[in-house]
């Protein structure tokens, strides 16, 4: 009776001790040195593996931050809060970069922009682009078929009334929509800067007026109104230098003047600065 219990106990116990010793030795001998910071940083990162940072995923970014090849604020999703925490781990100070958001530089919705034909093909901007640059009269504007909406991992961009609009609270500046947009009309801007030119049309004013009620006609009122030289006018189009813009709103106040100069049959302003 005692043998029946003893022998298995001794055998299995012996094996356990043997393997324990082998494994302990192996774990010391073949140890892969890892930086504890990688673990800590990885724990802080969002874990969505969205790829917005340009690395293969959160693991890859954590390694790169730990070995110093990526900046502590490399994760656009986490923003400044995350950058601060990562900086603490790395023992550096995070440069105070402002959160960026994507903005669609077109305001040509169904009421404002003229359609040149009825598009019946697949719901994809890239497909419509092949047919004379999409169904909108303006070849620079938003096609409005939601290719950006499909690629957004954060549900932050939606086509509303024929034009894509970014939900700035949800946007993480991952740039997926910027890459997907065949018209290249989505840009990253600092979230606090509220002045924007929602137009990419570089044609002459008369042609712009023919296709869109809210296109930039190149009147340059906004350029003159800006005291900080923050509005650059090139290629028949106003563009804002966000380094210089102070959100003063002078450009916005110049709108009534433009309305005054407008032809009578047009009821709303060309410029949508807000």
């Amino acid at each position: 009776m005692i043998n029946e219990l003893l022998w298995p106990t001794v055998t299995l116990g012996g094996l356990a001790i043997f393997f324990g010793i082998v494994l302990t030795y192996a774990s010391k001998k073949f140890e892969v040195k890892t930086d504890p910071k990688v673990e800590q940083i990885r724990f802080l990162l969002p874990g969505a593996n969205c790829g917005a940072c340009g690395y293969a995923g959160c693991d890859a970014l954590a390694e790169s931050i730990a070995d110093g090849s990526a900046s502590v604020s490399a994760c656009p999703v986490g923003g400044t809060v995350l950058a601060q925490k990562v900086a603490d781990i790395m023992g550096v100070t995070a440069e105070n970069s402002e959160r960026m958001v994507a903005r669609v530089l077109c305001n040509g919705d169904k009421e404002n922009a003229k359609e040149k034909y009825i598009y019946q093909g697949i719901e994809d901007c890239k497909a419509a682009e092949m047919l004379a640059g999409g169904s909108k009269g303006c070849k620079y504007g938003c096609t409005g078929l939601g290719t950006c909406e499909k690629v957004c991992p954060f549900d932050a961009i939606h086509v509303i009334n024929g034009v894509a609009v970014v939900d700035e609270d949800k946007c993480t500046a991952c740039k997926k929509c910027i890459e997907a947009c065949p018209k290249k009309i989505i840009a990253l801007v600092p979230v606090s800067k509220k002045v924007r030119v929602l137009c990419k049309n570089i044609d002459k004013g008369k042609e712009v007026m023919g296709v869109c009620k809210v296109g930039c006609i190149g009147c340059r009122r906004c350029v003159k109104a800006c005291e900080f030289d923050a509005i650059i006018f090139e290629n028949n189009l106003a563009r804002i230098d966000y380094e210089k813009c102070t959100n003063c709103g002078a450009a916005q106040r110049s709108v009534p003047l433009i309305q005054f100069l407008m032809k009578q049959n047009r009821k709303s302003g060309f410029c949508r600065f807000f």
Partner: protein
Amino acid sequence: MNLKTLSFKGGTHPPHNKGTTENLKVVQSKQPDTVAIPMVQHIGAPCEPIVQKGDQVEVGQKIGEAKGFVSVPVHSSVSGEVIAIEPRLTSGGSAITCVVIKNDMKDTVYEGIVPTAGIDKLSSEEIINIIKEAGLAGMGGAAFPAHVKLSIPPGKTVDTVILNGSECEPYLTADHRLLVERPEDVVDGLIIFMKALNVKKGFIGIENNKPDALEAVYNIVKGKEGIEVVALKTKYPQGAEKQLINACIDREVPSGGLPADAGVVVNNVGTAAAAAEAIKRGMPLIKRIVTITGKGVKNPQNLLVRIGTSFRDVIEECGGFVGTPGKVIAGGPMMGIAQYSIDIPVIKGTSGILVLTEEEAKLPESSNCIRCGKCIEVCPINLMPVNISNYALEDRFEQAESCNALDCIECGACSFICPAKRPLVDSIRVAKREILAKRKKAQSK
């Protein structure tokens, strides 16, 4: 005349609807008041206008000089005054610089238009040069410069020329009428191409739904050495280059290759007739036969139209629209491009203007794939359209590329046959575009 009919594997049979115009003689169209002649009517580099606003030009005078090797010059199709040089909408969908000429209705021919020394006295280089100077671009639709096809790069040998007279696109009868009415020009064109390439074998492939064309050409070819008329099975896309080569001489063009890789040069019969015109009479390409057809147009016709005439003028000459048109297509229904304006000029590649009624233009509702495999059966390239399309719709372009999406010739046979009316060719085109864009990006890095 007893000809065996040849064909390729795959393909489909769309209703060909050619009955309306196939027996109508080609009529010279009215002289238009103005013409707008685009500086790009071909695949390749745009031309530069060499006339200025206010200049007087004559019929056949060169108005656009080719820039680069893959480019052909452009000539005036009327005599009159240049009233503008400005970007105008064209059938490709974008605005292209056009020379707008006000017609003086005198039809004065440019003094430089004289017959050449004749085919027997010209060398191969001289022929290619005349063809280039005559502004010849493929008249089947793609408008690839003809002289580029005839200049074989070193390392490749070509032993056969095939003329494409299959005209497999439904509705169109421009090539058909050309073969019936001017078979000698077509055959002369073939002889010119054979001389230019220094080859001994030439084929003229014609679908067997055009027995009158087959007979007309056969009668001319009879007794001419090295030239053969081939009757092809009526099937879409019989006129696609690679399928035509496969049918005529049973060779296969490698994936991503050109017909020259299979030792063949293929040209449209219209291009051949234009080459004959250039060599025999010295006249550059300034007119082409256009089939104006469809239920949406009052009097369908085959018109000989001057390049640069607007679609509006041409349609008006055919009695205008019946009711509200549903769709106006430049080219045929399978591969043509739908237009949103009819104020666009007829160009070298405009083989037809098809006007569909609202009823015909309605798109069927697309539903789920039932995995019947019909698209695979009909694909002339032996691709699997269903797979490529599914990958494309999910933005998985790498997988689409591994399914050889780039070999798709966009013939639309799969979309036509699909019982679920899936947008097959549409999505494959998106995939092709994305794959090419990616390659370009990778190259520039």
